[in-house]
């Protein structure tokens, strides 16, 4: 099934690999860093897109999970660096600077948060859902600002990137490789999910709730499951993002972050599997190119976003690959 979208997806994922490789041979580490940032933000978008695109759940609070992932990294790493035990019971735990463990904690923490936030928020729908997720995000944001044990609004800086067995994570290209592989795995997972029995039922609940109930499936638990998976992936992205910057702060939890993750998804095309990849790449490119034009570059960014929404419906992929075909 060689549709245009299919080829476009491969082209995109190849480009995301090729650009940093080229930058590596040309010794342009910053371009690698930008590509890493794009891959990580795309990962956050892939997470959101499971809730948003597949489940139709417009969450304006995903910064909460992104930030929780980030703080999971920051807190574990900070304790490991300062040799201050995180807790002494039931066993002594001194934090960790091993990425796999950090990711595990980030995923577990953000999934638990998504379970609680989702269980409460999914009682509402429509605009109310948008706003209640925003409210939970803001609660965590204000909490983090005043949580002085971990830096408050100053954030938490770790001096060196965490470790991954067998790799030198301080080398930009190796860290990129980690982010890229995780992104590809997440894309693979999201693709499988969309085609799975669960995906079928979830997307049906978005299209027609009555139908799903009438065949004996519960939309609420379908959505909650999707929300938890979505939050967990976004949380993993948060841990990686914090590691990219070697820094975590409440900014990661602000509603601007939620908005930006959502913009990646919409820019690329809602519900398109690779939409977040296209969206994140485009956004970072725009931010980077326009930033050089003038101090008032955000005007141009705004105009471009506006033009894309108004005239390129279905996002970037929609514009390039045409209208979405029926599934299956």
């Amino acid at each position: 099934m060689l549709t245009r979208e299919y080829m476009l997806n491969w082209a995109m994922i190849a480009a995301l690999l090729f650009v940093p490789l080229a930058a590596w041979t040309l010794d342009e580490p910053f371009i690698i860093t930008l590509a890493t940032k794009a891959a990580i933000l795309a990962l956050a978008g892939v997470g959101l897109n499971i809730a948003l695109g597949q489940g139709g759940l417009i969450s304006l609070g995903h910064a909460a999970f992104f930030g929780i992932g980030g703080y999971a990294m920051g807190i574990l790493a900070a304790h490991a660096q300062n040799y201050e035990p995180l807790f002494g019971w039931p066993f002594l735990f001194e934090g960790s600077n091993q990425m796999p463990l950090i990711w595990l904690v980030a995923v577990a923490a953000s999934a638990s948060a998504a379970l609680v936030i989702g269980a409460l928020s999914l009682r509402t729908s429509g605009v109310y859902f948008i706003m209640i997720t925003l409210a939970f995000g803001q609660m965590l944001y204000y909490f983090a600002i005043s949580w002085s044990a971990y830096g408050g609004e100053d954030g938490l800086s770790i001096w060196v990137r965490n470790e991954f067995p067998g790799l030198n994570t301080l080398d930009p290209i190796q860290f990129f490789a980690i982010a890229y592989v995780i992104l590809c795995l997440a894309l693979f997972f999201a693709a499988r999910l969309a085609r799975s029995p669960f995906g079928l039922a979830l997307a049906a609940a978005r299209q027609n709730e009555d139908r799903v109930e009438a065949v004996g499936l519960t939309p609420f638990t379908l959505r909650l499951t999707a929300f938890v998976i979505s939050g967990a992936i976004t949380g993993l992205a948060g841990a990686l993002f914090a590691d990219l910057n070697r820094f975590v702060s409440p900014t990661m939890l602000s509603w601007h972050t939620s908005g930006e993750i959502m913009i990646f998804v919409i820019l690329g095309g809602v519900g398109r599997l690779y939409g977040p990849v296209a969206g994140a790449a485009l956004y970072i490119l725009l931010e980077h190119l326009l930033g050089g034009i003038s101090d008032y570059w955000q005007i141009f960014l705004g105009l471009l976003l506006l033009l894309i929404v108004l005239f390129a419906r279905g996002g970037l992929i929609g514009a390039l690959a045409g209208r979405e075909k029926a599934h299956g």
Partner: protein
Amino acid sequence: MADAVLRTKKLNKSFGALQASRDVSLDLRPGEIHALIGPNGAGKSTLIKQIAGNIAPDSGKVELLGRDVTALDTVARARMGLGRTFQISALAMEYTVLQNAVLGALGGQGRPYRLFRNVMKDPALLEPARDALERVGLSDDAGRRTADLSHGQRRQLEVAVALTLQPKLFLMDEPMAGLGSAGSKALTGFLDDLRQEAPILLVEHDMDAVFALADRISVLVYGQIIATGTAADIRANAEVRRAYLGEEDAA
């Protein structure tokens, strides 16, 4: 009649000053088609919703397969074997016809939390789905997008999805609406056979179909059942003629 598949007992439901159901008691027996008719605004939709579990009655009971299900939601009732078609097609419009049928099969199977398997390659789901489409005559349209179907085809698909659940009874809300005379005739024949599989509570405006099909007919007016009986009984019932058929003729 202890073996009624479905029974309502004195259902009452009000919306403010409007009493939409008034002591509604009816039952559905194995092997029958029980038609529910009544003018617009008589409270048919409200009654259907109480039976399906969308809204709770103010008082009274709903029993399914001999069990009191008044407190259960739509999902639980569907799982017990209530197969439902909607007045306004409730289908996943972006899906293909086959996907909608597979969704039904998935519901019937009751194991949706599998995250990796390709659902459209699962024979345990595809077979019942294809069978159901075949039975309603939609096999040739299996690959079409549901949104592109005609109105009548969507009604057929609704029935097919209900079939995939292998329900113990059907609750059909105006399945003939918008079908055209040929389609209506075909579906009438189909429902005629279907009652052997599971009884049908049929809400329908198409009087030809109702009188051709129904073993029993209940007439609902102003939230109240004014008569229940065979087609001949109802035709002969003066109150029904006055309250209902008379109005129909005038319109």
